[in-house]
Structure formats: C-alpha cells, structure tokens
C-alpha cells in the first residue's frame, strides 16, 4: 500500500479528538492527549475545558505546555486551585467527564501499570508511579487510554496494577463501588478498542487505514477479542492535519 500522508501520532490525535465529541470537561496530560483536546475544542467539542492535576481548570495555553505544571497553563485559565481542591472538588466530585490516561502496561480489562517492570521491591525498571492516575481512573466518568500498540505494553498479566480499569472484568469494578465508569476506549497508533461487552474485555472495534487484524493481534499479549463489526477509522481530514501542523504543533514536537 502507499505511504500514508499523515503520521501515526497524527492519526492518534485525530481519533482521540473525534471521541471527545460534545464533551464539556477532560482531564488531560501533556503531549498527544493535550494536542487531541485542543484539536477537539477547535472542531467537535467547542465547550471543552481542560483540567490538569496541577490545579488548573479551563486552561488557554498560548504555547504547547512542556509539562502539566507549565506556567502557560495558569495565565489566562478560568480557575487555578490547590491540588487538594482539584482532586477533591473537581475529580472526586465527579466533574471530570473524560480522562485520558496511558501506561507502560495495560491488560485486557484496561487496568494500567505505571509503577514497575519486574518485582515491586526489586524492580527491573522503576517507572514514575501513579501520580494522579490511580484516583483519576477511579473517579472520572469515562476513561480513554492513549498508548502505542506494542506487545510489551499490551500484556496478559500486569507486573503491578497501579490504576484500576475493569479489574477482573464483568461487574467486578462496580462491586468494589468505584464511582467512575472505567475504561471506554483504547486509542492506539494502529487500531481502536472498546469494552462494549458484558465481560468488559478489551475488543478490537476499528482498524486504521491499511492495518490488518493479524498485525494488531501480533502486538497483543492475549487472544484478542473482536467486536461484532470492525469498522475502518477515517483518516485525518486535510483541515485536521492543517490545524495540527500549522496551529497546534507548528514546531512538530509531537510528530
């Protein structure tokens, strides 16, 4: 097949933006998620306000933020509060509609590991840890994962469960009384997954242009479940690519 006229990152950004259609609030990190949210606000979610765990609600960054604590997120924001208030009054209160998360490992139920590779006490690789991810995954109304599809990341068993997804599947999350709805989507660079089945198990729901089911299965560490109908995701529109390249990321930091 011919080379795509867009990068994998651009496709992830565009797919994520589509999924934010109509959303009012999103809890977001830097990099791709931040780009996706800004693209969504300029297209399908004009009322979307960005919430950062650093204490910012309604950011209007004049540049691409270098971190979730970037001062550009403060200047011109609607509201900047203590982290106690951000986590208590916004996240735990249930005001976060969508949270975008990622991790080093994800399992078939959307549970995430951002803590260690190997044993917790004697790790092979020490990862950053939870940050706000544990409480975000528990309290956000809906959670989207954004991760590159790699076999070492899509594992049969996590080395450490940092952030609860659908736990052991079915109603196991609800039985523990977790207030948020849990994982809804996994947005990768090759395909899109959802959890729309009674077992709340990750299933392939859409392939990106030119990607096959086998290519996807090859990167997933368990027998992949397929949705009843697998759609082909639309490629980025010219206008979406223009927004990303000319307005959101003119210096190509995230491509």
């Amino acid at each position: 097949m011919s080379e795509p006229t867009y990068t994998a990152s651009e496709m992830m950004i565009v797919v994520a933006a589509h999924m934010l259609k109509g959303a009012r609030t999103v809890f977001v990190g830097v990099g791709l998620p931040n780009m996706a949210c800004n693209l969504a606000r300029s297209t399908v979610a004009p009322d979307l306000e960005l919430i950062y765990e650093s204490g910012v609600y309604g950011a209007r960054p004049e540049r691409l933020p270098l971190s979730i604590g970037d001062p550009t997120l403060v200047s011109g924001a609607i509201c900047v509060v203590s982290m106690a208030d951000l986590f208590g009054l916004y996240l735990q209160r249930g005001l976060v509609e969508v949270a975008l998360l990622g991790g080093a490992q994800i399992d078939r139920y959307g549970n995430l590991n951002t803590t260690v590779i190997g044993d917790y006490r004697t790790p092979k690789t020490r990862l950053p840890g939870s940050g706000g991810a544990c409480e975000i995954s528990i309290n956000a109304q809906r959670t989207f994962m954004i991760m590159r599809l790699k076999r070492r990341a899509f594992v049969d068993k996590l080395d450490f469960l940092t952030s609860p997804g659908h736990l052991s599947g079915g109603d196991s999350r609800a039985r523990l009384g977790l207030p948020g709805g849990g994982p809804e989507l996994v947005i990768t660079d090759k395909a899109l997954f959802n959890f729309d089945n009674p077992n709340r198990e990750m299933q392939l729901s859409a392939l990106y242009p030119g990607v096959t089911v086998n290519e996807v299965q090859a990167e997933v560490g368990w027998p992949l479940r397929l949705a009843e109908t697998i759609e082909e995701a639309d490629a980025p529109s010219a206008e979406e690519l223009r927004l990303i390249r000319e307005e959101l990321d003119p210096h190509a930091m995230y491509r």
Partner: protein
Amino acid sequence: MKNPPKTDKLVSMQQAIATYVGDDCSVAIEGFTGFISFAAGHEILRQRRRNLTLIRMTPDLIYDQMIAAGAASKLVFSYMGNPGVGSLYCIRRAVEKSIPRPLDLEEYSHYGLVGRYAAGASRLPFFALRSYVGSDMLAANPLIKVIDDPYGTGKIAVVPPLNPDVAILHAQRADRQGNTHLWGLLGMQKEVAFASRHVIVAVEEVVDEAVIRADPNRTMIPGLIVDAVVHEPYGAHPSYVQGYYDRDNESYLAWDKLSQDPTAVEAWLDEWVYGLANRAAYVKKLGQTYFDKLKPEPLLAPSVDYGRYR
C-alpha cells in the same frame, strides 16, 4: 452526573428562583455576615414557596424573615443570632411557640456544618473533625457520630455529607458562564457551591470572561457548576459586599425591635417584599443616595503579574 452546558446563564432572579427553587426544596442562601442574597430570599417569598428546608450556618435576618413568612418547615444551622445585635425573634417564636408554624431544627457547630458542606462538595461519605466529644450536641443530633481512628490514636467525630438542592450565593463579579470572583470573607461559599445540585450566583457586576481569566486564583466558583447568573446590584443589602457597600447596621438594629412584634413583621414583609416587584424596586424605594452612604472609600489591592508564556 452531567455538567451544565456552557451557555449564557444570565437570567433575572425571578427566572432563577422559578426554575431552581420549588416547594419542599432544600435551599442554602449562604455567606458569612456578608454576601447574603436577601434578593433571592425575598423573591422566594414573592413566589410563595412552602415547606422549604432552609440551610445556613448563621440564619441571619433573611431566614428570620422567611420563617416569619411561613416558607420553611426545617432549619439546618450552626449559630442562630442577629450578628452583633442579639436574638432572631421570628425563629424563636417558631421554635418556642410554633408561630406561624412549627420549625424542625437540625443543629451543628460551625466547623461541623462547614464539614458537611466540604464532604458533600468532594463526594466523601463523611468529614472528620475534633469537636463534639464531651458535648450534649452529640445527643441532640444523631447524624453526628464518634468513631475510632483506624490508626489507633483515639476517638474522632464525623459528620455526613450535605448536598442542598440549590445554593444561592452573592459575589462581587462573575461572567455570563458563572465563573465567579470573590474576595473578602471566603466563608463556606466554595464548599456549599460544589456540594449543591444547583447553583445560583448573584453578583454586583457581570464582567467579560477575560476579567475572570486575568486572575484565575481569585475564581472561587467555576461556571462549570453554576446554573444561573443574576445581575443584582445591592442584592445583599442590608448585609454587605466587601469593597462595594457596608453592612447597613441600622437595618439590623431596627429589625431587632421590629421583629419582636409579629404584626410589625407582617407589615414589613407587605411593604418591603410582597409590595415590591423585584430587587430593583427595593433599591429604587430606598434611593441611590441611601446606598451611596454605605459605600466605603476605595482600598485597592496591589496588582500581581502572572506573566505571558508563549
């Protein structure tokens, strides 16, 4: 739960009350000593709401008036006095003599009621505080419990969350989305706003969103949780709004005398509440020169620099 859409929320107090305050609602008109939306309380009376549960740390004159008018069946509070003056006689008549009707009381200390708002605001099942142990308040209110600290340091009191149907708050300025700047006594406004199912914000000035975004640390209530914005100058009179007008202490002293006589209270309500169409009429009736006397000299805070980062 669904966040209210980002639309222009500027409405009249009449519309705001008609939309969000029904009979049998639990209503919190809050603000400690200042920022009390008398305008909202009077509009609720004009709309003849009944059987309300009124929630306020310090019931103040506004709830004394609403209870005298028979609008409430229950009062949730933590200090029942005419601040700096004396008693609230209408509430006392309801409690001591069931006039004009009986009034159930649910009573806390200040910190306890603040804690109930705080737990409600952050979806927590309880708020822990070092109070009540040794006090008869525990027996008077079974909702207050004492538990063992899970870390073994001893006993600690807890109160459950409180989520009013509607909170009504007055502030200096907000934009049309309800993003609200508040300065002076911050009281419990942030907590009760986040705790309530609906929020009505009344302000002295409606400003452009840019004014709010120019000082994000000053934003106490985000439009995200606000349902209605009402432009209501002098809407907190006879209480005060920091920097805009002083408390009209003469009115508080006058009420202390007047409120001891039920007939005088009825006459007052007829003249100042039922006899007027809205707050604008109340302000007109008192006259601008009356309010000019309550205006303090300016005392401006030094500006701060947030810096442009691009």
